[in-house]
């Protein structure tokens, strides 16, 4: 009985506090006060009293936030002292649930999509519409309407979506050009040519023709068959890649490579690190490289094989003679205010102040002449100052200016010429070919959020089985039935319901 009444009081208190915030005048309630309802009769003057400390929980990063240049900069510019805490690198979701269940009074949380959805639907997050209206002018300017969609549940905004560095392409096949020259081969342009090139390399060079890791099954080769990202629009309907008939063709092709020894036999157990090891030591001829690994991979290859030359294989063409590249434009991070926060208004003001254009620019790339310089309209980092001060700056972001940040952000890629070269080559090759996943702009949908991760693991595990032939391709339909039964059917149905209504 006692428990019930405290709960009721709490609910009442929160709802009163809420209506107090939104309904009344623009004057903020005095910061630092407890969440008990304020007497709204006398609208208090906006006071110059000390700003309360904001308690923020962020994702894991290998640094001490309190000692970072960025954290000092933020406090200096916004006037808010901030206490930063981090989720652990592993079991972050469990830890977060523990913290929320115990009503730890964080003011700002930086969450990933699954965490955000979980907390928002369990009622742990504060709807932000009214707060944003009152104190969020810079935030509202920085974030595009379609991004807001991703953080809106039942018509209410539960977080500030952070889209990060924008749509960019991560991986592309690379191949040993020196070996191609030696064997008189040219860079393949489609799946059949790739097969022939790999076969010749296998016969003549006795190395692993194509290596890869278990974490990255799809990509360049899959796109030639029309398998892009998770979702694809076919005749006005969303189809998941597991249900695409092209998936079977792709797996069949990979199985052929595997059976003939053209694909690394250890691919199903390789980590990216292991696959890179094989390519960098000259034991493998081709690999789907992520540009962020390019610096160390190419340096290591040049050291162990000084004569090695590497070419990027332009995205392979499909049967219709056209190349495509799949990309996700999902919101990466969600910046939310939990119900348990004691400084909700200040939290929004704090987040808003961080997105003030000049402050934000400093946050992203520091000061011109100190941290970065501008050359032909592009931002270049000044090293080592940029690295010393801003290496971890992205972790402090709480929403970004969606127009400018992708441009600012590229300064990070220009820290290393090899990295920059690969990043820019990949993006240039993908220009005009990118197909963005149609689910990228979807709001959180229950059946999708609940099943995505689980079904992705199921699909990937089975894809590896089909590739290695430990499971014959004929039984793909049996697997598909299992995939549908374990939530795939619900997920596809819910996704399509949203898609039809959004049209």
């Amino acid at each position, binding site marked *: 009985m006692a428990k019930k009444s405290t709960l009721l009081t709490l609910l009442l208190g929160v709802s009163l506090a809420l209506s107090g915030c939104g309904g009344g005048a623009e004057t903020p309630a005095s910061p630092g006060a407890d969440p008990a309802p304020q007497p709204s009769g006398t609208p208090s003057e906006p006071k110059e009293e000390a700003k309360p400390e904001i308690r923020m*929980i962020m*994702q*894991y*990063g*290998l*640094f*001490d*936030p*309190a*000692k970072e240049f960025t954290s000092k900069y933020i406090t200096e510019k916004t006037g808010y002292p901030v206490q*930063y*805490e*981090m*989720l*652990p*690198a*592993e*079991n972050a979701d469990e*830890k977060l649930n*523990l*913290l929320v*269940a*115990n009503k*730890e009074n964080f003011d700002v949380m930086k969450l*990933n999509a699954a965490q955000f959805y979980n907390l928002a639907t369990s009622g742990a997050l504060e709807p932000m519409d009214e707060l944003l209206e009152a104190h969020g002018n810079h935030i509202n300017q920085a974030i595009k309407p379609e991004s807001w969609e991703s953080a809106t549940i039942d018509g209410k905004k539960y977080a500030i979506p952070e889209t*990060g*560095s924008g749509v*960019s392409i*991560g991986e592309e096949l690379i191949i040993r050009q020196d070996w191609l020259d030696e064997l008189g081969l040219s860079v393949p342009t489609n799946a059949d040519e790739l097969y022939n090139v790999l076969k010749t390399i296998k016969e003549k060079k006795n190395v692993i023709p194509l290596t890869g*890791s278990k*974490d990255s099954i799809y990509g360049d080769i899959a796109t030639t068959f029309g398998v892009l990202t998770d979702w694809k629009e076919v005749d006005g309907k969303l189809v998941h890649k597991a249900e695409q008939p092209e998936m079977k063709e792709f797996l069949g092709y990979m199985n052929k490579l595997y059976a003939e020894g053209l694909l690394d036999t250890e691919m199903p157990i390789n*980590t*990216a*690190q292991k696959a*890179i*090891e*094989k390519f*960098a*030591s*000259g034991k493998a001829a081709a690999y789907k490289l*992520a540009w*962020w*690994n390019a610096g*160390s*991979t190419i*340096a*290591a*290859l*040049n*050291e*162990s094989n000084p004569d090695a030359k590497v070419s990027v294989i332009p995205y392979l063409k499909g049967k219709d003679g056209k190349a495509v590249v799949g990309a996700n434009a999902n919101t*990466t991070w969600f910046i939310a205010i939990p119900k348990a926060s004691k400084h909700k208004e200040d939290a929004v003001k704090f987040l808003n102040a961080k997105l003030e254009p000049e402050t934000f620019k400093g946050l992203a790339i520091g000061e011109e002449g100190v941290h970065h310089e501008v050359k032909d309209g592009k931002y270049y980092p000044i090293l080592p100052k940029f690295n010393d001060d801003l*290496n*971890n700056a*992205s*972790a402090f972001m709480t929403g970004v200016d969606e127009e400018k940040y992708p441009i600012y952000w590229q300064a*990070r*890629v220009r*820290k290393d010429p090899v*990295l920059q070269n690969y990043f820019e080559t990949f993006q240039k090759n993908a220009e005009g070919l990118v197909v963005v996943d149609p689910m990228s702009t979807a709001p959180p949908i229950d059946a999708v959020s609940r099943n995505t991760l689980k079904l992705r693991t199921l699909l990937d595990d089975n894809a590896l089985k089909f590739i290695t032939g430990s499971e014959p391709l004929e039984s793909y339909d049996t697997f598909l039935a299992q995939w549908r039964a374990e939530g795939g059917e619900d997920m596809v149905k819910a996704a399509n319901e949203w898609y039809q209504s959004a049209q």
Partner: protein
Amino acid sequence: MQLMKQDLDLKKITAGAGGNAIKSSPGEKLFAAFNYAFFILMGMTTMLPFINLLAKSLSSEQAVVSGRVGLFPIGIQFETYYYVLQDSMFLTSLRTSVLLTVIGTALSLFMTTITAYPLSKTRLRGRKWLLLMFVFTMLFSGGLIPTYLLMQNLNLVNTLPVLFLPAMVNVFNMLIIKNYFEGLPESLEESAKLDGAGNIRILIHIILPLSLPVLATIALFFAVAFWNDYFAAMIYITNPELKPLQLYLKELIVSSGGEFLKNNVDAAINMTPQSIQASSILLATIPILLVYPFLQKYFVKGVLVGSVKG
């Protein structure tokens, strides 16, 4: 830990061989030689991962990335060690771990011993029930979330004491000490009593000096457990300043691995080079390894004391 055990076995065997060395038949010699060879080989096997790490930590990153480093470093450099030793996160964690291990071990040993002593006395009233209650906590606990709630209500979350206070009386270790105490002759206590010594005096001046071997062993158990513990810190600590070394190491490794880097391009760009990971692991392991030699003489003594008493 395993390594040291084998070392200990070697010691025992050498001691045994030394004792009978006056006359040994060729067969015995062969047997001894085989033993040496076998255990040295076993010892070497457990050393291999360490040697590999050492080689990696001293090699150039290019050599490590291309997987060419085995037992010997390629392209020797020492910058990784320089880098780790001036890294403020590593040093902060090291300080936390040393503090935790020293304070935790001292307090736990004290608490566990003074719990074990009364329980080793048959004249203690209700001893059976008390013991049962202690053993009960070995088998059943409140579970993670209630424990977390308790710590939170005690205002212990995000403090150093939360890492050692809840673990101060370890029932398993307490039972070991209790059994050792029970093995000491009752007459020692009686004679001290006749000379007018009180309970505390008997414990401090008679019982504890005789129990050094078991105390050293348990102290080592505690020290290793505190040094290696990352779980408590993972649960209770979110303040980076209070993270012990093992948690730092775990996060260093996890944050450089596949799953963590997915969808986090910024983390991927800043990935820690493998040679720096290797030197961090080595530097975090060496301090606790250094404790073993100092405590080893007590182990040997413990074995001897046991054998004389029979």
